[in-house]
């Protein structure tokens, strides 16, 4: 079974959050994006879990290569090191000035073309969304472009045969189990659990592996097709919403007194 995992480099969302509340987050007015100085970059956590999902299939006896594909980014070596350490066999870095203008749809076009170029995939895994723009577009769009099904927000993927996987999806108030014929795209959610910590050997070996860089021409994707979506949907502004914050702290005395005060206040407000 050929498994392709789609991975994205993003700024650490916890740090972005902390910067925003500390008033330190800045927006670059020319590109309408956050300034990344001082913010660590790394693989989107959901994508790491997608690699872990692939590794669990391997643990269960599924044979075949696990390739990681990633578009652009500023520190691709770091991303691929991480991918190799987590267990990926091959890495493909899709890099071309023509990709600079790609939005999520454009990225999906690049990835679909790249998957084709590397010989196709039986199972395409990726995170349920990027923790930067939170859009969740890439997985389903790649599926639509390849004309295959997409099963989203999975917490478990098991092989039923070489041709079928059983996926447990997280749905509101429960779970759904589906059998899907391959090829298919499955997007992974955090309920899958934490990726394994790479053994020292794997970390060491990862350092010697390199990803293959591929351009628009090599994968045969039309640069115009890649950028047109981003031109139709243009980001014209980005801002940090202000929080007024007018919290009334209840104090005076110990926990008992404070508890009594709060209960009384909520009762007066008709809330309890």
């Amino acid at each position, binding site marked *: 079974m050929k498994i392709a995992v789609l991975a994205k480099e993003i700024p650490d*969302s916890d740090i*972005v*959050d902390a910067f925003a*509340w500390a008033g330190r*987050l800045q927006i670059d007015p020319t590109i309408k994006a*956050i300034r990344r100085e001082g913010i660590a970059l790394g693989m989107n956590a959901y994508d790491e879990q997608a690699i872990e999902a692939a590794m669990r299939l391997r643990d269960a006896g599924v044979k075949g290569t696990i390739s990681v594909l990633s578009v652009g980014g500023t520190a691709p070596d770091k991303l691929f090191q991480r991918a190799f350490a987590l267990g990926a066999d091959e890495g493909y870095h899709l890099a071309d000035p023509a990709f600079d203008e790609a939005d*999520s*749809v454009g990225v*999906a076009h690049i990835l679909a073309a790249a998957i084709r170029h590397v010989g196709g995939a039986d199972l395409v895994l990726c995170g*349920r969304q990027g*923790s*930067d*723009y*939170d*859009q969740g*577009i890439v997985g*389903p*769009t790649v*599926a*639509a*472009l390849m004309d295959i*099904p997409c*099963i989203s927000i999975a917490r478990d993927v098991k092989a039923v045969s070489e041709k079928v996987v059983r996926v447990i999806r*997280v749905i509101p*108030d*429960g*779970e*759904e*189990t*589906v*059998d899907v*014929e391959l090829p298919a795209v499955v997007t992974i*959610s*955090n309920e899958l659990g934490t990726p394994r910590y790479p053994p020292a050997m794997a970390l060491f070996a990862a350092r010697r592996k390199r990803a293959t860089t591929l351009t628009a021409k090599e994968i045969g994707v039309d640069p115009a097709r890649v950028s047109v979506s981003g031109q*139709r*949907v*243009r*980001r*014209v*502004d*980005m*801002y*940090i919403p202000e*929080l007024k*914050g007018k*919290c*009334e*702290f*209840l104090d005076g005395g110990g*926990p*008992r007194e*404070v508890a*009594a005060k*709060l*209960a*009384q206040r*909520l*009762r007066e407000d008709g*809330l*309890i």
Partner: protein
Amino acid sequence: MSKSILIVAEAEGGRLVRMVSDLAAVACGLVGGAAGSVVAALSGPPGTAGLAKELWPHGVSVAYVAEHPLLGELRPETHARAAAAAVQQAGPSLVLVGQTLLGRDMAPYLAARLNTSVLMNATELRRNSSGEVEVVCPVYGGSVRAVYTVSESPATVVGFQPGVAVRGEAVAGGARQGQVVSVDPGLGGFQSKVKLVNRATTAGPRLEEARVIVSGGKGLGDKKNYAYIEDLAKVVGGMPGASRAIVDLGWATRAQQVGLTGKRVSPDLYMAIGISGASQHMAGCSTSKVIVAVNRERDAVIFKYARYGVLGDCLEFLPSFIEECRKLKAG
């Protein structure tokens, strides 16, 4: 005449989903009540056309209905085909999709089929001073907002989060009869590759409908302390919720998770106990009427959202507070 806005009217179990009226309200808001400008795509198993009349009171004038046995299953591959057929016939300037379980995947599928662009998580839709359509989307979990202008030719697909758009009600004067146009979903020869094995959902009251929610976070320190949250919720007649951090730890269930990737709730009272107030958590509860925060760090972001704050150890506070609430309720 200006072009129409098409909303995707999802039906489940023979009923329109709640978000349909919200989408209609958003669309009506943008067209400013111009008659004949809001249309809908409705797809489902044979018999679905009967639901079209429920759209008229919301200001929808034409329903493009696709019926096919395969549309009984809520799969994006099939419903996107049906919606694409509707869009091709209606030729709208914008397509709005509600981000239900189906809509979330269907919107990008539909955009790919139509060879157009897509934006998800929209919270606002408006026309700017140059007449362009502007869409606001929270990004980075909600700590940042991005504003986009979107193409109306070809029509962009815009996904809306449940609960954040306008709460749609039937509009006065919108009750006149609309028109039903049947469309071919183009599913002849379509073979489904996905087989449902099992769907298990918990019955009972839903977090989204609770008037009072008491949520616990990592500040509880230990799984066993979540019992305080459950106790308190029971005493005040509410439901227990949780941050993702403790759902991941197994202290609470996934159905209790509030936030960006959990439930979107908007109760009258939301109590956040031992929760830091990360933007991804607040994305699910910041529209609550009154937020109460209990946290031992004065700098915790949660206090910026709170009306009332208690600074201190939640484990010291909770037993007393449960006791006080019990007394109030009894008295």
